[in-house]
């Protein structure tokens, strides 16, 4: 009895959609646009966020030695670094440093000729793998490394970290505020669209109530309709966004400075979340609109 009742309501909802095609199509179109704007923003935000994070991850540190480093010093460093998420790129000896400097100077390498001994320190380059924003790792590591006998100085760009950090902060704040506003706008538009579909059928609701339909009987098909509409709206918006994404990435080579920016589409788990969210928006939107309607 219960399941047949529910089946009846679902059937009713689908029939209502088909019978009120035009109103539903207008509503669906509005929803698609609202979701598309939100999804496009999300895509841009997620990519920008992951890009800035990527920048934060690739922090390079240089460890400078007093004189030519002994193998025991290198060993000490290796041992210390085992505890940290870093990778060692290469050891640059004093000679190698000089060679590379000469190469950089090119024609003006003659300037170095007057030097009696090689003043350049040997160095070791390491790359930090962890998100620099999350802890004071670079500071801590610098202090520990400089405590090792034979290490002269550890250098990295504090400014770079600070800059990445502030960009990430800004991106996230703007993202949250703007995304939140966009979502509210979408919710507002959708709720009103659903309200219009309901108003367009207020005679039907009145008659149903007069022949003894319970509130549940009247409301459930509308809520199912709203949810179906929300799901379809979300799905169509994502499909359009994906097609746009394919078209854009195939034609345009996006570069920011030297780093090429690979735009990645919204990940499958996120897509599921978005679909769920759009369905829920339809569900909540119709429930809220109906609540207001039934108070009239």
């Amino acid at each position: 009895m219960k399941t047949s009742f529910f089946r009846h309501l679902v059937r009713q909802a689908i029939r209502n959609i088909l019978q009120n095609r035009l109103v539903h199509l207008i509503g669906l179109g509005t929803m698609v646009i609202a979701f598309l704007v939100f999804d496009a923003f999300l895509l841009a935000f997620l990519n920008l966020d992951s890009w800035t994070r990527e920048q934060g991850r690739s922090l390079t540190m240089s460890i400078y030695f007093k004189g030519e480093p002994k193998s025991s010093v290198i060993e000490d460093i290796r041992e210390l670094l085992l505890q940290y998420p870093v990778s060692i790129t290469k050891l640059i000896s004093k000679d190698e440093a000089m060679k590379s400097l000469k190469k950089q100077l090119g024609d003006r390498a003659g300037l170095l000729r007057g030097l009696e001994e090689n003043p350049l320190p040997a160095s070791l380059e390491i790359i930090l793998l962890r998100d620099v924003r999350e802890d004071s790792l670079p500071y801590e590591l610098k202090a520990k490394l400089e405590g090792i006998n034979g290490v002269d100085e550890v250098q990295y760009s504090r400014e770079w970290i600070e800059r990445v950090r502030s960009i990430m902060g800004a991106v996230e704040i703007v993202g949250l505020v703007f995304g939140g506003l966009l979502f509210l706008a979408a919710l507002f538009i959708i709720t009103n669209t659903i309200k219009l579909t309901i108003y367009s059928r207020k005679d039907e609701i009145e008659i149903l109530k007069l022949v003894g339909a319970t509130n549940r009987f009247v409301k459930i098909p509308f809520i199912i309709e709203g949810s179906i509409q929300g799901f379809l709206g979300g799905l169509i918006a994502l499909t359009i966004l994906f097609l746009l994404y394919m078209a854009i990435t195939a034609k345009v080579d996006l570069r920011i400075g030297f780093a090429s920016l690979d735009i990645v589409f919204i990940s499958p788990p996120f897509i599921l979340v978005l679909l769920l969210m759009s369905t829920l928006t339809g569900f909540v939107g119709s429930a809220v609109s109906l609540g207001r309607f039934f108070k009239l």
Partner: protein
Amino acid sequence: MIRLYHVYKSFGANTALVDISMTVEKGEFVFVTGPSGAGKTTLLKIIFSAEKPTSGHALVSGRNLSRIKDRELSLLRRKIGVVFQDFKLLPRRTVLENVALSLEVTGVPSPMIRKKVHQTLRNLALVGKEEYYPPQLSGGEQQRVAIARAIVNNPLILLADEPTGNLDHDLTVEIMALLREIHSRGTTVIVATHSQELLRGTRRRIITLSRGRMV
């Protein structure tokens, strides 16, 4: 079956009903009459609780309509069939679907619904019109569909607001015969009408309203 105690109803500054007290017993057939604007429709609306009294009480089938809960009201309305003056048929549903509505809301299984709807349509000479939409029907046919919807679930009470208002003489006679037949099966019937023709020679009780008061 129906009891009204000192019922007043006003819409803003307009007074529709003034101090109405009346009783309709189970199985009675009552006419409510009076000129347009006398309050006939409002009185019927009070009885099926489409309007609440501004003051006073209305009891239907033992329920006080001033205090009834939503769900109880839905259940009560299933016992009251209403034929509206403007029919209130859904234009985008077929005759069959319109009539089935009264049964669908009660959760009756589909095969039973079809059976009862066909039977009712047969009684009202609407066989062959099942798949028509209301706008495709004549006024008299729409009137009969509205009656079919009101009686298909064998209500205890049938309220008819100007059920012959749009009909010619022959159809009026036919519809009245139908209402009498429904009444003969034990249904309490209240017919609101301004038509003197309908009342001529009747031995039924007549409640006359004038400017919202019983006279």
